[in-house]
């Protein structure tokens, strides 16, 4: 009895500090990013940060308007979802409902491999293959466009969207489908009118998580979108996203300068938007209809 208590105690002592370290790390990062970022607003006004149209951090006088960067991120991410949501959803339906077990066994690991490829590899593929391809196909002066970034990102978020919606579709109770089939509906009709609607909250969660993943992606986007901080006027505009701005400029920004704080403030914007999206997605996943 005493021995068991000691074992329990030492197990706790052994594991608890490590759990605490990870929580503390998050807290430290959170505090650091927020203190560094918020001190920007003692130097420039929030209005200037959110609504100025120009991002010229090293010009004299500098301007730190992030609107072009936010729009850049949104455009690339939306294009990525426009491509990957139909692909991911139809793929998930196929794997969950239609494919025979053998094909299913083959497809799932392939998807997982796709998720495991480092993002710089996608970026390199984009730079070497997609950029020249987009330039030639659309007859553009340059292939470094929002569209190119969207295509690369769509491949990267596909595993997220596919595997989470596949989980959602697979977990629809079999009674639902049986009831539908018993009423004389065809298999396709059942999928369309019963299974997918029943899994809707999970599918929406998959899309939101995919969105979060796409917004946060940095290096692959940096390599193919051209990095020009302009308000995009078409899908063929070059764009500069929030993440690539931080990655490209943080290394040389003077510690404690307005520029440095502005980059952290962009970090806060990213932090809050992905946090809200993730919480929203988690709530949707937890909410079951049955």
């Amino acid at each position, binding site marked *: 009895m005493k021995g068991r208590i000691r074992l329990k105690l030492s197990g706790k002592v052994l594991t608890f500090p490590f759990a605490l370290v990870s929580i503390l790390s998050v807290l430290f990062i959170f505090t650091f990013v927020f203190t560094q970022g918020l001190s920007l607003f003692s130097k420039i006004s929030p209005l200037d940060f959110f609504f100025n149209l120009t991002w*010229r951090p090293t*010009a004299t006088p500098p301007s730190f308007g992030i609107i072009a960067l936010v729009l850049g991120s949104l455009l690339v991410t939306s294009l990525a979802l426009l491509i990957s949501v139909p692909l991911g959803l139809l793929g998930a339906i196929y794997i969950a409902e239609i494919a025979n077990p053998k094909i299913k066994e083959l497809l799932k690991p392939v998807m997982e491999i796709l998720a495991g490829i480092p993002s710089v590899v996608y970026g390199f593929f984009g730079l070497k293959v997609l950029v020249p391809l987009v330039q030639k196909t659309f007859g553009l002066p340059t292939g470094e466009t929002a569209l190119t970034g969207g295509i690369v990102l769509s491949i990267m978020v596909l595993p997220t969207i596919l595997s989470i919606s596949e989980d959602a579709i697979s977990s629809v109770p079999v009674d639902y489908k049986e009831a539908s089939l018993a009423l004389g509906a065809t298999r396709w009709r059942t999928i369309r009118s019963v299974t997918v609607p029943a899994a809707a909250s999970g599918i929406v969660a998959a899309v939101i998580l995919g969105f979060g993943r796409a917004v946060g992606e940095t290096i692959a986007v*940096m390599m193919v979108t051209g990095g020009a901080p*302009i308000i995009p006027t078409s899908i063929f505009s070059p764009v500069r996203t929030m993440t690539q701005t931080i990655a490209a*400029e943080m290394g040389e920004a003077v510690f404690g300068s307005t520029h440095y704080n502005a980059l952290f403030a962009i970090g806060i914007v990213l932090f809050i938007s992905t946090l809200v999206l993730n919480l929203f997605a988690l709530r949707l996943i937890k909410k079951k209809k049955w």
Partner: protein
Amino acid sequence: MKATTVGIIAAIVLVGVISAILLRSSPTAITRSIQVRGSTTVLPIAQAAAEAWMDDHPGDSIIVEGGGSGVGIASLIDGTCDIAISSRTLKGEEKQKGLIEHEIALDAVCVVVNSSNPVEGLTLEQVRRIFKGEITNWREVGGPDLEIVVYTRESTSGTYETFETKVMKPDNITLRALTKISNGEMAHAISGNPNGIGYVGIGFLAQARDIKALKINGVAPTIETVQNGTYPISRFLYMITKGQPEGLAKDFIDFVKSSAGQKIVEERGFVKLP
């Protein structure tokens, strides 16, 4: 409850030990030490020279930091560094405070286009108007009827700073310009795009393929034209001291100006002193 307390203590100890390992100072005894701060353009030279010097003189410590020319000069005046590295000359009031500049290298930026582009040279004014976004077709400067695509470097890079100072001032490079994060990426982009125009540090030109450097005001960028000052997009790089340098600061500056130091200058893609 007790387990929780022990756990918290263990976590704090763990964090403490990790930070101590990360932050621990060098164990060797240091006899002389200087702080070098300033221009990110000069940073690679200073960094490589400091490493070479410390390899040969284990007792000396030379700490090199970036921050920009202005930051370096300001902290030299404040006395928080011993040598400022700078890519600009001293202003009048800075000289009056007793600062002395030492030329250590030359920097030149080449304007580059795709090898297939028939344009061989531009005037400095044409380059400025192209990068400003006023000239948008190669036809306007004697080339083919192709839209010009302007490539620039991240605004925090030293090459950008040189280009901006020597070509653009007081104007800005167009926001439409595509941004590259290194000389290598720039060369890759220009070599793949017949519409493109960009710029690279002169030291990078030799190893780049399928791109060519334009003559500026009729002068091609070579070591000779940079050294004799006829190539317009070039400038001196400096180490600055407060009063005449002494001790390790003097040794270090002498080392950078020596033939061994000038070899480092060339290895880093800059032009050695004439």
